[in-house]
């Protein structure tokens, strides 16, 4: 049954992506044009709630530790920039395209094939190049809290505050702009009523 847990976790992930409509290209690409901040809201809410659950679990002693990905600033930043350019250009990321494959649309399947082709390339010469890039610059294997000496709970609080602030701005500004452009239409969801 070692396959069941990842399958269920993945299914929950896919359902959440589809229900938040992140399988729509406009939703993902819109965040870079500041016309649709759904992806940013989902991302920040997930970070805030997930960080809270992880810290609470560790504090209660329910889990001894959690894995931390290594930080290689140059590779992380360069990869992130290329990834962001791809997301803005195509309107999807790896997760959303697989969550959308159930539609059977040609474009979505073409994207999945593109991902697979790149992964095959990165198994060979591309992988060696990526490994070389990842060896440039310093490497950090700890968390921000351990690196700076700041209490982890305070960092979680900052994350929650950032999520709340962005949500406040998004709910106040974007619906107003939308309402101004479509005066005859009621606002679907707003905090400022």
């Amino acid at each position, binding site marked *: 049954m070692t396959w069941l847990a*990842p*399958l269920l976790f*993945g299914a*929950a*992930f896919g*359902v959440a*992506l*589809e*229900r938040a409509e992140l*399988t*729509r*290209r406009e939703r993902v*690409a819109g965040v*870079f*044009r500041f016309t649709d901040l759904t992806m940013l809201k989902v*991302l*920040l*809410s997930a970070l*805030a709630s*997930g960080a*809270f*659950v992880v810290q609470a679990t560790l504090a209660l002693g329910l889990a*001894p*530790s*959690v*894995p931390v*990905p*290594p*930080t*290689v*600033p140059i590779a992380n930043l360069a*990869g*992130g920039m290329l*990834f962001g*350019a*791809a997301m*803005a250009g*195509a309107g*999807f990321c790896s*997760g959303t395209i*697989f*969550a959308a494959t*159930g539609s059977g649309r040609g*474009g*979505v399947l*073409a994207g999945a094939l593109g*991902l697979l082709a*790149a*992964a095959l390339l*990165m*198994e060979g010469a591309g992988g060696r190049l990526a490994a070389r890039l990842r060896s440039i610059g310093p490497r950090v294997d700890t968390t*921000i*809290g351990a690196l700076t000496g700041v*209490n982890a*709970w305070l960092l979680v609080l900052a994350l*929650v*505050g950032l999520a*709340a602030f962005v949500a406040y701005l998004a709910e106040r500004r974007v619906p107003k702009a939308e309402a101004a452009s479509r005066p005859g239409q009621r606002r*679907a*969801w707003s905090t400022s009523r």
Partner: protein
Amino acid sequence: VRRAAAVIGLLVALQVGGAKAADPPSPELFCEGAPGGSKPSVPPSAAPSPHWRDLELALALSVGLAGAVVYVVHNERRRRREDAPSIVWTPYVAGAVLGVVFALSLVAFGRPLGVSAGVQQGARLLASMVGKGGTAVPSPAGLWPLWVLAGVAMGGALSAYLRARSGSASSIVAAGESRARTRLVAFGAEVAATIAGGCTSGLALSGGIVLAPAAFVFMSGIFIGGIPTAWVATHLRRRHQGRTP
């Protein structure tokens, strides 16, 4: 917002005031699975008991999050009253569900949920099957990323099916898409994920919730690369349509 900012400022001041008696670097987190990852200097069993400040901060956060949950539920109900019945989740509910799912995967199994890792594992298996290198087929437990990938596709398909049955419009709208461009951009995204060490799920979310610096550097990179690209794409499209900006 002003009150919340004041509370956060107060807590920061308290933290800075007590920084001289700085808490030791959080011993509960360490790197496992990462090649060359460091182990904690203090083993988890010998970790100090939580400080009162930790409990105060946790309590403040719990109250804040409870308030946020009440607000979101209230807004959801109002939205459902006002709009036609919809099965779309608000971004906050979807985000909270995602956060809990990612956190449970990390604390219960010690494994991140990375889609790009699943694609890479699939490619590795494919390469080994056709005899072009790659490694031997791992045990079922070693196929975690591939099962996650299958689950994402299944979950997305199931949700889209239920949405279609409920009569709601499909969330998948891809008018005017070019398959060649999509394939090319997807190619670039996977290459980028390999360079960065993960994608939005495997690095930004799974790393962000354990407060790894890599996640925040990667997310900054996404916006640094994405915003100019979106701007250029929009202008090119307008020019192509004959409406020069």
